Structure formats: C-alpha cells, structure tokens
C-alpha cells in the first residue's frame, strides 16, 4: 500500500523561457515565450499528482524539466533530497535511473526497427547492468508484468495495437525500478475501452511497486480518477492546487470552475442541470501574456487589481491553494 513519508520531488520557482527566432520576434515584437513561469509544488512519495490544462499551458514542459530533459531558465528541482541541477554528470545519470517517462504516442515512442525485447534490454545495456541472459529474463518478466505474453519479445512494434504498445512503453519505463514516473498523456491516443485497461494497469503497478506519478493530461475526467492531488495550469502558472475531491466539489479559481463546467460528463442527468456558463474567448499567446492575473482576459469577476498585480498561490483551506485576488 501507499506509504506517505515526505516529499519525493520538489520544484521551487521553476521557470522555463524559450527564446523565439530573431525573424519571428521582428514580426511579433516579443521574443520570449514564458512556457513555465515560477512554479512551486511538491510531489509526495507514493502519490499521483495530476497536472491539467489546455494545450500550450506548459504542462509537458514541466514534466520534461522535472526529468532533467531540459534545463530550466531559473529555479530549483529537488529529487529525493538532491538538487538535480547542481549535482555532477555521473550523479545525475544515476539519479535519472530513478525517474522515467511514459509518452503519449505509442507509435513514435518505440523504435520500429527494433524487436520489443531488444528495446527493453537496451535500457539495461545503457547502464551496463546484468549478463545477457539475465537481461532477457528480466525483459520477459517486465512484459508479463504489464499483461503481455513474454513470447512477444521477438516481435516488432507494428505487430501490436496502440494499447499493447502503450503497455510496452510502460514495461520499458519500469525496467530500472524507478521511484518516479512522469506519464505524459499516456491514454490520450487510445480508445475508451483500452484507456480503462491502461489506467487500471498504472494503478495496480503503483500499489504493487509504490510508484509516484506525475500524471499530465488535458482530460479532466481521467485526472479526477487517477490523482490524489491535482494542479491546474494556465499559461505557465499553477492557478489552483488541491486534493482531487475538494477540487471537484468546491473549485475556487474561476478558471477551474469554468473548466469543470466545460467537461461533458457521461450522464444526461448532470448535463441537463448545467448552468451553461461557458468560458469565453481563447487562450492568449504565451508570447504576450496579459499583465497581472493571466486569466483576466477571460474572467468575469474583473477588478482593477487583476491587471495590476499578479495573484500568488495562497492556501485557502486545508491543502487547497489558489492564485486569485478574489478568494
């Protein structure tokens, strides 16, 4: 079962700005995309933190930053007590064994010219682990763990369906017995009946192996199901962070409220009673985010302070953080 003792991953003032090509900045007049802008959060051992938001809000970038796949512009990342930005190359390599990733697209994330047995064995080879026979044995074991036949070792990715490939991706992520897994939209490209199979598998593995997940998704129905806590992102900022039940029962930030209102539930009874208050307008460009509160251009409860001052993430209830001037 889940044992909760302390923080596994912590992000402090995590920021990632991308510079835009010169010719682009000539057109737009701006040259920095603020993909991730000052995130503070922590992930507890054995929990699932859901990260939701619309496309372009910086949720995938956050995942890549935590894994050390990209260097942040500023800020700190503490993984298992060590600052991954200040440890040496070798130490970082060893740290990376403890964190893995599951990608969205099960088609492009596997090498089409490699048998899936070798794909998984490569993970061991990369760290010079085990003898050849032992690698094979472990690869077979991993495939069985994710519900595939170990005979499928000798087959190529194109022989598998999307759901099966996603299982292979999960087996590969588990190979080095990681503590922390970033799942970046792991079920978005799968059909509903297969989605449920993969979500159940991820939950079983978490209970069995005591994994910690950062679950990145745009689907608010799924994130509620899998997460213990949920962080809602908007234009590179976390606007609300809370336990998943309390986020759904009493969303505080106007964006979260509207977002939950926008999601269609598979239940005509609930749908009939919708108030039908829709979020208006579209996501502003991260090249030129609104001053002050970034949500103000789509918000109804507008005050002068909203355009002047940026709201900070404040604790409003037990473990419920909101960044809004009105709360």
């Amino acid at each position, binding site marked *: 079962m889940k044992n909760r003792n302390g923080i596994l991953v912590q992000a402090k003032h995590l920021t990632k700005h991308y510079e835009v090509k010169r010719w682009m900045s000539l057109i737009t007049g701006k040259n920095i995309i603020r993909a991730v802008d000052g995130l503070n959060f922590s992930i507890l051992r054995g929990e699932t933190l859901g990260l939701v938001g*619309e*496309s372009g809000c910086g949720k995938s970038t956050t995942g890549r930053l935590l894994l050390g796949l990209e260097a942040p512009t500023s800020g700190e990342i503490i993984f298992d007590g060590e600052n991954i930005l200040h440890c040496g190359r070798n130490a970082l390599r060893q740290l990376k064994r403890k964190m893995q990733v599951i990608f969205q697209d099960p088609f492009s994330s596997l090498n089409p010219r490699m048998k899936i047995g070798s794909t998984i064995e490569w993970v061991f080879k990369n760290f010079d682990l085990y003898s050849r026979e032992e690698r094979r044995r472990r690869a077979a074991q991993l495939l069985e763990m994710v519900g595939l036949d170990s005979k499928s070792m000798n087959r190529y990715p194109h022989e598998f*369906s999307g*759901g099966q490939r996603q299982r292979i991706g999960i087996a590969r992520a588990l190979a080095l017995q990681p503590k922390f897994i970033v799942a970046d939209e792991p079920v978005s490209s799968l*059909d*509903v*009946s*297969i*989605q*449920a*199979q993969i*979500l*159940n598998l991820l*939950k079983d593995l978490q209970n069995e192996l005591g994994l910690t997940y950062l679950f990145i998704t*745009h*689907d*608010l*129905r*799924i994130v*509620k*199901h899998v997460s213990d806590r949920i962080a809602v992102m908007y234009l590179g900022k976390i606007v609300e962070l809370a336990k998943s039940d309390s986020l*759904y029962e009493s969303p505080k930030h106007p964006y979260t409220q*509207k*977002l*939950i*209102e*926008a*999601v*269609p*539930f*598979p*239940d*005509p*009874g*609930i*749908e009939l009673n*919708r108030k*039908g208050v*829709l*979020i*208006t307008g*579209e*996501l502003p460009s991260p090249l030129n985010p609104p001053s002050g509160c970034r949500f103000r251009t789509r918000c109804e409860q507008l005050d002068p302070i909203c355009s002047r001052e940026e709201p900070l993430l404040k604790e409003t209830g037990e473990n419920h953080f909101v960044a809004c001037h009105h709360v």
Partner: protein
Amino acid sequence: MERVLEVKGLKTYFFREGAVVKAVDGIDFHVDAGKILGIVGESGCGKSTVARSIIRLIPSPPGRIASGEILFEGEDLLKKSDDEMKRIRGNKISMVFQDPVSFLNPVYTAGDQIREAIVIHQKLSFKSAWGKAVDLLRDVGIPSPDHQARSYPHQLSGGMCQRVMIAMAISCNPTLLIADEPTTALDVTIQAQILELLKGIRKRRSTSIILITHDLGIVARFCDKVAVMYAGKILEMADVWSLYKNPQHPYTQGLLKSLPNPAIKQERLESIPGQPPDLTNLSEDQCVYLPRCHKAIPECQRGQPQFVEIEPGQFVRCFRLVK
C-alpha cells in the same frame, strides 16, 4: 414526427487486395426533423463511413455502397445521379469535419471559401454573397467578422477555423448537418463553445444534426438519440436518457463503465477485455461482439443477432435480449 433521413440496411464495403472490409454492415436508423442523433463508437468501427455514405463521398474504388437505401426527404440518395448529388451536397446536406485547419484551403481567405459555397448553390452575385459570408461569420460568433473574413486559415486558431467550417456548412440553410468529430482536435473550453454553437443553430434554424463522436460525455450533453456502433454494426440505439440510465447491450454497459465519471467515486474502472476486431476477417456466423462479451450464451455462436426493438424506441442487437 417527420423523418428527415432514413437509412435502411446500408452496407458499405471496401475491396482491398482480395479482402473485403465490411466498414458498414447492414445498419438502420432514422433522424427526425430538428433532432440530434449521436453515433458513437471506437476508432475503426465505421462511424465516419456512415457519414460519408450518406453524402456519397465513398472513394470508389476501393469502396462501394453494396446495398441499402438512404431516404432523404423521401427520396433515395443512392439512386441520384452525380449531378443531382452535387446539388444536394453542401446545400441540403452539409458536413463539418474533424480537422478544420487542414480542411480549409490555405490559399483562400475564410470569407472567400464561404462565399464559394453560397455562389454555387444560391443565385447570388459575388458582392452580396460576400455580405452574406460576413453575416454568417457573425452568426457563428467570430469577433469583428468584417476583418476576419479577410484572414487566411493560418491566421485563425483551431476553434476559429472550426467556426468558419460551420459557417460554410450552414450557409445554404441545410436540412441535415453531419458533424464528424467536430471537436476532437480542440481544447475542452473551445469544445464546449462549439457544441453550444451547434445547439444554437439547431434551435434557430431547426436543422437536424448527426453528430459522430467517440466521446460519450459529448453525447450526453448534446444529443437526443444515440446509436452505438461496433465493427460496422449498430449494437444499440435509444434516446439518450434510456441508453445512459438503462443500457441493455453488454458493449454499451462496458463502455459506460470504462469511462471515468467524476460524479462517482470509483476505485477501479471496469474495462472491456481484448480489443476491437479487425474488420477484414470477421466471422459471419457469430455475434461480432462475442470475443469480448462476458454475458455470452451458446446461441451467440450460431449467427448474427437481429436488430430488434425491445422497448418502444430502444433497439438492441443481442441474442440474450431477444425472446
């Protein structure tokens, strides 16, 4: 109630390298005037082929509508000549596609593309057609339509492009609008806006709509009636309330249980074992859903069940429910 569209025993097959893909295999349904029918199913179940069959946009070869009738306002569309079809398509029946950005022509402005549809089907001059295009853009909620009509598709966001497509689709006041996954490529906040827009169009112009989607949530929000497709067949069809409150077919039950419902606390989702079948080698002499069904009875191996009405308005294709 008046039936705008009635499809009877439609079979659309694709012939490829000696194999036959039965993408649509004997389906019956009808759409009432001013109502919204949802067709749901997983990828590859044939739901888009149904839409393309109705407006006769099946590429041939390899595809062919093998048999059936598609009665639109009482006339069989399958008996129409190509010229007659051209006058119906985009005029009385129009379609909205999934990927608006690639559907629009990148070298023409949004206004030009809407105007083209108007000029073809209505006897209007270019100038007054432009005015109408701008009005339509205003109708579908595009801010400053005068200006945006002169924009090219790449200057518009995905949601805006979808609005342009919808403006084009409703430009000739169609009786039937077919929307094939109109919001799949869009963010959830924009999706809600587009669905609201389509609902408004139904209300103002009493257009009938067929909405094709894989999302049971969208169906619950938007549709009056729903047909659940699987492997080229409709397994269950009913009004939205009965289908969600009292699903009869094991597949419908499985789909609803495998979807996380935020309103209920679920520890585990009940998934459907296995995966959708390959349409090329489907066995004719057993129920298509048998390999994944947990409620199978011996009869299921002995042929295809019939599509029967078990309650008024609720049709199911399952041996267990037929007395």
